[in-house]
């Protein structure tokens, strides 16, 4: 019997940087510890939240004797797909009416991005995707593994803690014709910095003039501003000009369905027959990856979206979450102002969505973890969803100390 393992060459992979923050947090025994790492919503009491309307929908599903657990088709739950397309593109979208959109159920945002990227790597002539600098840490990995090569375009300006719009236009302007461009539909992760509508229009014109292919990542629709329509404006602008684009949608945050892995990939095409052929090819990507998608989360989403009363209830709960985040932003900003913390902290209230790019550097972050038991990613990103009125003062103290102490 061989004592050598066939896996001798397999080294231990490092912990995922974002998820590793929670691992470290869990090990800390301090009563003051604060987890501002992973982007999952927390209540004012610091607890995970399952939306009431989700519980209602789940109850209905589980109690329905006629429901079975038969395989979904490769593209997933049909109702879910139609409703998801309407949610992101608008119920009256001409692209939908013209049957030019193919929508397939995928495993949340990650799965939708991966399936879309694999499709492009196989069937699209340009294999470079431009991603904003910075972006969600998992983006480059998804695209690389799908077979695309990754380049960046300037996005965040540390000097203003806002958008480097000129840099963005220059870099996309220099991209080869036809290249793919990843765009965060709203609530950019990790910076919280979004283009204005006017800036979106300029981006759109540039992208169309260079025949770049937009690929939207929409993980926060409704969660950013509190309005589902407002948060989809960027995507709809691109669809309105009749051009093609891809959109990855996630229900992890806006419906709190994180662990159910519910999302959708929509590809808006020039013509119905193109959309139909594209869909057939998407199936060939999906079948050898996981055959068909999981039913539970998609059924919950479909039940809520198709019932006007539940839909309304959802929008109310969604707005409450978004409002709580806005309130945390306001409170943190005021707390820092009250402490006279040096620097301009207005970006806290200008940025949008779950995350704030504080502008703190990695030494300051390490200091805050060590001295104040604040857990966050080393790029200075904090999840506002992890804050409460009770914990804002502690965070403000920590930031104040980090900024005023010379390390």
């Amino acid at each position, binding site marked *: *019997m*061989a004592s*050598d*393992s066939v*896996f*001798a*060459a*397999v*080294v*231990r*992979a490092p912990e*995922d940087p974002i*998820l590793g923050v929670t691992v470290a947090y869990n090990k800390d025994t301090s009563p003051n510890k604060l987890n501002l790492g992973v982007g*999952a919503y927390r209540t004012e009491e610091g607890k995970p939240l*399952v939306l009431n309307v*989700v519980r209602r929908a*789940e109850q209905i599903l*589980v109690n329905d004797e006629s429901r079975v*657990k*038969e*395989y*979904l088709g*490769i593209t997933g739950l049909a109702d879910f797909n139609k409703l998801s397309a309407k949610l992101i593109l608008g119920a009256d979208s*001409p692209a939908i009416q013209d049957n030019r959109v193919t929508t397939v159920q995928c*495993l*949340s945002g*990650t799965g939708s991005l991966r399936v879309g990227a694999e499709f492009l790597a196989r*069937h*699209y002539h340009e294999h470079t995707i431009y991603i904003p600098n910075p972006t969600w840490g998992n983006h480059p*990995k998804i695209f*690389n*593994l799908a077979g695309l090569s990754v380049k960046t375009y300037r996005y965040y300006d540390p000097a203003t803690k806002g958008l480097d719009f000129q840099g963005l236009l220059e870099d996309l302007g220099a991209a080869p014709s*036809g290249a793919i461009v990843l765009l965060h539909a709203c609530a950019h992760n990790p910076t919280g910095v979004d283009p204005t509508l006017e800036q979106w229009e300029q981006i759109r*014109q540039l992208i169309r*003039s260079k*025949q770049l292919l937009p690929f939207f990542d929409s993980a926060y629709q409704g969660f950013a501003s509190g309005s589902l329509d407002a948060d989809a404006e960027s995507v709809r602008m691109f669809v309105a000009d009749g*051009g*093609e684009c891809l959109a990855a949608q996630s229900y*992890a945050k806006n419906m709190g369905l*994180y*662990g*159910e*892995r519910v999302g959708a990939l929509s590809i808006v095409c*020039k*013509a119905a027959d*193109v959309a*139909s*052929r*594209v869909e*057939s090819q998407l*199936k*060939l990507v999906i*079948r*050898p*990856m*996981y*055959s*068909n998608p*999981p039913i*539970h989360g998609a059924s919950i989403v479909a039940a809520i979206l198709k019932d006007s009363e539940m839909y309304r209830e959802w929008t109310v709960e969604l707005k409450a979450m978004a409002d709580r985040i806005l309130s945390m932003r306001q409170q943190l900003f005021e707390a820092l102002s009250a402490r006279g913390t040096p620097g301009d902290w207005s970006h806290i209230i200008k940025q949008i969505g779950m995350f704030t790019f504080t502008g703190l550097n990695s030494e300051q972050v390490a200091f805050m973890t060590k001295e104040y038991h604040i857990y966050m990613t080393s790029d200075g990103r904090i999840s506002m969803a992890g804050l409460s009125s009770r914990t804002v003062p502690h965070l403000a103290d920590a930031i104040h100390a980090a900024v005023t102490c010379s390390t």
Partner: protein
Amino acid sequence: MASNVLSAAASASPSTSPVTDLLKGKGRLGSGNVGSLFIKDKGNPFLNSKSCGRISMAVAVNVSRFEAITMAPPDPILGVSEAFKADNDEKKLNLGVGAYRTEELQPYVLDVVKKAENLMLERGENKEYLPIEGLAAFNKVTAELLFGADSPVISEQRVATVQGLSGTGSLRLAAVLIERYFPGAKVLISSPTWGNHKNIFNDARVPWSEYRYYDPKTVGLDFEGMIEDIKAAPEGSFILLHGCAHNPTGIDPTPEQWEKIADVIQEKNHIPFFDVAYQGFASGSLDQDAASVRLFAARGMEIFVAQSYSKNLGLYSERIGAINVVCSSTDTAARVKSQLKRIARPMYSNPPIHGARIVANVVGDPALFDEWKAEMEMMAGRIKGVRQKLYDSLTSKDKSGKDWSFILKQIGMFSFTGLNKNQSDNMTNKWHVYMTKDGRISLAGLNLAKCEYLADAIIDSYHNVS
């Protein structure tokens, strides 16, 4: 015509130009001609136009970038169900489906599953992300179910178990690991095997070849051919084995044959790679159906095992399964697990909770576990019952003396009837019996009431069609 369109578009207002009509799907300039014209014309005026306002609608006019994409062929297995649905004959029978049906030919949700879901709802658990490797409680009970709770591979913590998206997803994680860490290594798959196996390895860019398995002359196992082909494979190949209830043939090696297969695999330093999609569903006994895997584990071999709960817990659409890698040491298993996580993260980040919780609740609770075993015995028993009735019907109706006993010897959901493509077509066209072209029928889609009808169809197709 084309130049008119160009100039018209350049001065068009968005609402009325022929270009806009094109965008709206009205007006045709010949299919595909318009597009190629614009692509060839690099000096396309409105692509370079500076008057952004007016061209905002027209800028997008060119052919779809996906125009050249062809329609992919439909999935061979799913196409059968679609054809069945379209058939209005009342005698129709769907034997293509790889999902269990009751005697009334209805889909079946296990009672223990309903109980577990109700428990979960009562508890009001949250929906937070699982860790990348999945639900810990699920991984624990899953490995124990497969290897036996008292197996040394469990007590020595030598198994890396990662929750995957049913069998397919688990196979895919393993395939990517193989591509990364065993570059150039080949996977040998049985001839025939489940149709999606080759797709998984193709997409993961793992080379594969076949080993002989099905012998059409005996409608049984070509054991000599299998051993020869495994022996002939380059050292260190991965050998894909069906743990039990081989799909599509229903033909499994005997325990003695499994020992010999393990011998030759060890001899050649191959790595066994089990696909276990029917544990408990084949014989009715969870332990018996895991005997092949446990035989290899007992020899101290390093093994890959992809597991699915689709059939044995009826959780088809919940996509719940696992990839298990038995390693030579605890540390190795930890490293392998970390690398499997690295593969899952850019594919779907973390796996879905619902199915995992159902399994953890059923398999982890002694009372529900016992109830599950009973339901599983019932399902496996029904399949065995229809096999017997079909065999009896064939034997009594067929006067040719042909030996139909392979129906009883085969095991699991599927049977390879030995019918060829023409004969299978006859089953469908004349008798409205839907099955796959390779002659495979799903016993799960058959009930006692229809056995005689099916026997008539098979006898007719076998003897009267070539």
